[in-house]
């Protein structure tokens, strides 16, 4: 008589959005181990139809509050390509600065507020206020500063205001940028190094699990690709962004309101670990130093290490943000108005790395500048098949530990992906059934 498991975690906590984990094992045979996405469908692609190009990013930003900046950036790139709108170097630099701020904000929130409680064996960040006040205060300072980048450059960190297709409606003052530069060096950098030391003390708690899979992220010749680059797979190498449909293959599965994706295998992974595996050679020496300290090595196939990769890249984002600010301040802020005069009307694709992975938007515009077709492919949606495959391998490996321990480990697995379910449904929870 083999083991029976019947696990159902309804509305998984400490993730963005609604999902359930379901595991059934009968007589030692695993019948089902998967993440069911139960977030209400959102229908954004349909909502975009007929909308003016000025409104595309205002609408798609609302797919997700946490990723609102990333959705805006991807939306602008798609619209600008479709309408033939050139943007200035200053606009690109300010956008890259915003992406760094949003990446640090999201990574710190996930690593220290949502994932760290698992390693410290508490149910949320709130008990840590009493037991680990210095960690909570450092995390709050980092989040504050990362959000301040958004507020200074774009008016608001959640659903930015002044970023528009073609540029910015209002530009930050050189003085406010100089203050950010100073705070990044004097506050953020030491806080990130401290956070990395804290994570290093918890590294022994990170589950030892390995499943070989495909990793997909952007890659560029110039930098650690976040804002722009080619699509790159650890299996098949680089292709241009226009091949995004072949590199994602969205399909509907009955147990998830979010569509699933696969390319060269039954599943692939996107996010900080995919970026690390594809682009670790583009990281600055300081970030590589933190990676060495945390035991993160190239070609890493342990999804639990995604959180570590987030900490590593945050160090890079901070230093690169400082370098961008130096360039902006050296050149001086030029008074520019957004370029919003279309030179063509057609189809455009935006591919950007947002904190959870590679994000695609594609829009087609008519001659009035109105959207006739839209498609958004979301990082969490791309990770769902990979999460299911991980569960199928992980559950038999830990089957002797008992239902409660297995359920908790699966919750930690899903959280390691830092899923953003509102996004993926444009849509998390754990269920076990024996």
């Amino acid at each position, binding site marked *: 008589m083999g083991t029976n498991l019947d696990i159902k975690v309804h*509305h998984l*906590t*400490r*993730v*963005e*959005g609604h999902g359930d984990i379901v595991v059934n094992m009968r007589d030692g045979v695993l019948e089902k181990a998967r993440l069911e996405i*139960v*977030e*209400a*469908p*959102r*229908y954004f*692609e*349909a*909502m975009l*139809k*007929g*909308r*003016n190009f000025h*409104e595309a990013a*205002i*609408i798609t930003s*609302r*797919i*997700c*509050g*946490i990723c*609102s900046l990333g959705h805006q950036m991807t939306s602008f790139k798609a619209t600008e390509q479709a309408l033939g709108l050139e943007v200035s170097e200053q606009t690109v630099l300010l956008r890259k600065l915003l992406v760094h701020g949003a990446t640090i904000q999201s990574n710190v*929130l996930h690593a220290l*507020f*949502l994932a760290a409680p698992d390693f410290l064996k508490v*149910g*949320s*960040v*709130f008990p840590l*206020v009493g037991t680990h006040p210095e960690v909570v205060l450092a995390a*709050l*300072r980092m*989040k*504050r500063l990362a*959000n301040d980048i958004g507020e200074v450059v*774009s*008016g*608001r*960190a*959640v*659903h930015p*205001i*002044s970023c*528009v297709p073609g540029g*910015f*409606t*209002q530009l930050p003052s050189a003085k406010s940028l100089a203050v950010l530069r100073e705070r990044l060096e004097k506050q953020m950098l030491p806080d990130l190094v401290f956070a990395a030391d804290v994570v290093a003390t918890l590294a022994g708690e990170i589950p030892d699990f390995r499943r070989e899979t495909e990793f997909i992220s952007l890659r560029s010749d110039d930098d650690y690709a976040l804002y722009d680059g080619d699509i790159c797979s650890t299996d098949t190498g680089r292709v241009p962004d226009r091949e995004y449909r072949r590199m994602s293959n969205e399909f*509907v599965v*009955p147990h998830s*309101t979010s569509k699933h994706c696969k390319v060269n295998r039954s599943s692939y992974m996107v996010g900080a670990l995919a970026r690390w595996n594809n682009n670790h050679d583009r990281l600055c020496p300081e970030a590589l130093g933190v990676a060495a300290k945390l035991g993160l090595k190239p070609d890493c196939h342990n999804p639990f290490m995604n959180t570590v990769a987030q900490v590593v890249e945050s160090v890079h984002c901070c230093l690169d943000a400082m370098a961008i600010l130096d360039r902006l301040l050296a050149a001086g802020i030029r008074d520019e108005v957004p370029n919003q005069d279309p030179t063509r009307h057609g189809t455009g694709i935006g591919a950007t790395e947002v904190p959870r992975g590679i994000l695609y938007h594609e829009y087609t515009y008519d001659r009035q500048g109105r959207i006739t077709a839209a498609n958004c492919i979301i990082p969490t949606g791309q990770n769902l098949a990979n999460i299911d495959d991980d569960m199928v391998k992980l559950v038999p490996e830990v089957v002797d530990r008992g239902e409660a321990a297995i359920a908790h480990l699966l919750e930690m697995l899903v959280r390691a992906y830092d899923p953003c379910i*509102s996004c993926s449904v*444009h849509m998390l929870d754990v269920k076990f059934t024996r």
Partner: protein
Amino acid sequence: MANKPRVGIFDFTGCEGCELNQLNFEDQLLDILEHVEIVEWREAMDGRSEELDIAFVEGALSTPDCIKRIHEIRRKTKVLVALGACAVQGGINALKNIRPIEQVREEVYGQDKYLFPTLPALPLSAVVKVDVNVRGCPMTQLEFLKVFTALVMGKAPIEPGNSVCTECKLKDNECVYEKGMICLGPVTRAGCDAQCPTFGQYCTGCRGLVPEPNVEAMQEILVAHGLSMDDARKKLQLFNANQLEGVS
């Protein structure tokens, strides 16, 4: 205070940006935690609770399960606060309400459209009694703190009824129309400190319409500034499709 108020935070159909804005109270979060006990918040902590003094609820109602859950929350809660445009008006989700639902479902899920039940996106007030509204997309932290302080002090929060234009004038902003752009400030409820016009954008109407809005006059102004009637209506619908099209 002998007993701290027990607070729950909940989310329905939306982007969770308002909740994120609560985690973004970096400077005030520890003070807030001194005055209330947060007993249920799926996005940030484990655990569920039976009785609540205050529930902050984000998101619109758009599936049969949402309707069931909001009734459960209402039943165990003394003061229910709708957080953000989705909860207060249905928000941007309500854009799907103005097109035939079958068409919308087919466009996104194709032949698999029947796998996932959906309803028109509704504000919380369409289904249960809402005690306090915190408006905006996202809600502003300043307004949340005002409402939070009032509730912890046992006072009724004041909801502004004037238009965004009045706040924009107080800030000495150049009128958005003077810049050759259009703006929904005249018919949109104040309380955001005219954030968007202050950052060079136009008001998109995220805080909902003022009481007794003159929608016809607003449309005439938009048309006089170069929009077609159809585009003028679309601009107004962005965050207010339910109110304008009478879905709720």
